[in-house]
């Protein structure tokens, strides 16, 4: 058994044992944002595209799930799938528009589209506007498992988390992932080899949006509540921060980054109040300056260095 399989099994064991030590709803929140950051990493880390509007996918899926389950009597699995489909469709449209521009302009267009969605949600009655969408029922998964039980809900989120990471791993190692890597590494060369670069980017954007939608749907389901905050640009910024803190282009980096940011928010919110953003800002600054590759990137580099030394010594 190699070290990678061992780490994966250890991770799954930790997920199974976690609710015995950590408040399940905190774990649910952590995992939702970990999925979101991992989905975002598919864009920034693996494709090299900085989207600054990813909250639109997170929030849109939350509203779709919330509205469907509250008013149309959808079951949770339908709500989640519909949320992912809606976010993916929105991702396809936003991607197709934004992909015409590169770098900062790409980021600005994604921001503009997400602001458009934000104001649409604010102006529409059925989103509940500033009050948010309250009273989303958690329902029964497949008509069998009652999700009102926090542990059952945690189980669903944990399974989705594992599946999402597995999907991302498959995507980046697939034939499509190989093309994405080539595009990230040298776009003009990929173009000269006959690849319609824009199409691959739009597909990556769509997949990333759909997975972000899974995260947003799960969060709305867990909290029985969806608000405009989940569409807000500050969340789009936060997910960039999570990815960079943890380490871009690694599978576990965004997970570590999301855990770090959310835990910091949770533990400090009632102690330092307004100073929270200052502290997070300082931490971010420190990490950018001291750890270029994020927590996970630095750690794996150190470990590789140690292993190299050990080999040289023996």
């Amino acid at each position, binding site marked *: 058994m190699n070290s990678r399989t061992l780490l994966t099994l250890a991770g799954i064991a930790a997920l199974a044992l976690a609710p015995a030590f950590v408040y399940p709803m905190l774990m649910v929140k952590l995992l939702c944002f970990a999925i979101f950051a991992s989905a975002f990493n598919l864009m920034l880390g693996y494709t090299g595209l900085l989207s600054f509007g990813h909250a639109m996918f997170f929030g849109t899926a939350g509203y779709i799930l919330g509205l469907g389950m509250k008013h149309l009597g959808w079951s949770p699995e339908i709500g989640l799938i519909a949320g992912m489909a809606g976010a993916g469709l929105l991702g396809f449209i936003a991607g197709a528009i934004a992909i015409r521009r590169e770098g900062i302009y790409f980021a600005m267009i994604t921001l503009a589209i997400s602001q458009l969605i934000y104001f649409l949600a604010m102006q529409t009655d059925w989103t509940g506007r500033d009050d948010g969408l309250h009273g989303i029922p958690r329902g029964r998964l497949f008509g069998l498992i009652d999700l009102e039980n926090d542990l059952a809900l945690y189980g669903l989120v944990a399974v989705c988390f594992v599946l999402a990471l597995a999907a991302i791993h498959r995507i980046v190692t*697939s*034939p499509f*992932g*190989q093309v994405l*890597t080539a595009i990230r590494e040298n776009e003009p*060369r990929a173009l000269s080899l*006959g690849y319609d670069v824009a199409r691959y980017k739009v597909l990556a954007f769509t997949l990333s949006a759909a997975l972000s939608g899974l995260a947003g749907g799960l969060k709305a389901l867990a909290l029985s509540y969806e608000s405009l905050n989940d569409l807000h640009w500050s969340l789009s910024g936060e997910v960039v921060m999570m990815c960079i803190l943890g380490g871009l282009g690694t599978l576990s980096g965004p997970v570590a980054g999301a855990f770090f940011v959310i835990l910091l928010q949770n533990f400090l919110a009632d102690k330092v109040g307004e100073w929270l953003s200052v502290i997070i800002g300082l931490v971010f600054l420190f990490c950018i300056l001291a750890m270029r590759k994020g927590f996970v990137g630095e750690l794996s580099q150190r470990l590789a260095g140690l292993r190299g030394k050990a080999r040289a010594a023996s």
Partner: protein
Amino acid sequence: MTHVLETAGLCKEFGGFRAVSDVSLKVREGDIHALIGPNGAGKTTVFNLLTKFLQPTSGTIVLEGRDITGEKPAALARQGMVRSFQISATFPDLTVLENVRVALQRRSAPTYAFWLPGRVLDRLNARAMELLELVDMQDFAQTRAADLSYGRKRSVEIATTLAMEPRVMLLDEPTQGMGHEDVERVTRLIKRVSAGRTILMVEHNMKVVSGICDRISVLQRGSILAEGSYAEVSADPRVLEAYMGSDDADGDIGAGGEP
């Protein structure tokens, strides 16, 4: 003899500055055709126009009888005309084998399949190794492209380009910045891969040009000054003057020396 690639009255202006002016180029099938000229003569601009990385202000480009003036770069590559770049264009973080495989993948393996495992690409490995053997790079298959010497990166790039099975290859300064040995290696390589295809290259090194090129076009200030075999062109007084009049040591056509 038929012309594979032809331009008529090709012009490119950058905000009033005419970088390329009325260039009519005819590249014969099966030739190694060189585009030479002093620095700033517009060689790379012509190159970018031909491969559609730039859009001409006026004029037409015809590839094998089809007007390709309005085509996109990726479409052109699929029609059999593939370019290389002035600065070595590899995928630095991929291995040498993967570099070649990415090119093979576009022609004969799934490229959008995000649900398939990466090992479906392994069936391309044999063909990729063949191409690497052709450029003497088989021993470096598992090396990251970024860790190779400059000359070897060039070889990888040529193998990658060959994977596209192009009928027309455009090489932008294939020996630029190389040491003596690498220049010879790459020159031999270009000669070897020219069999059965047409090559148009921008080149500074006159030893390379005189050694392997069948036909030469001399570019000066955006226009074609002379065209012909090396013997014809190097005897042309206008060409000599163009080269003497510039400080371009690389392009000393009279001496036929090295850079």
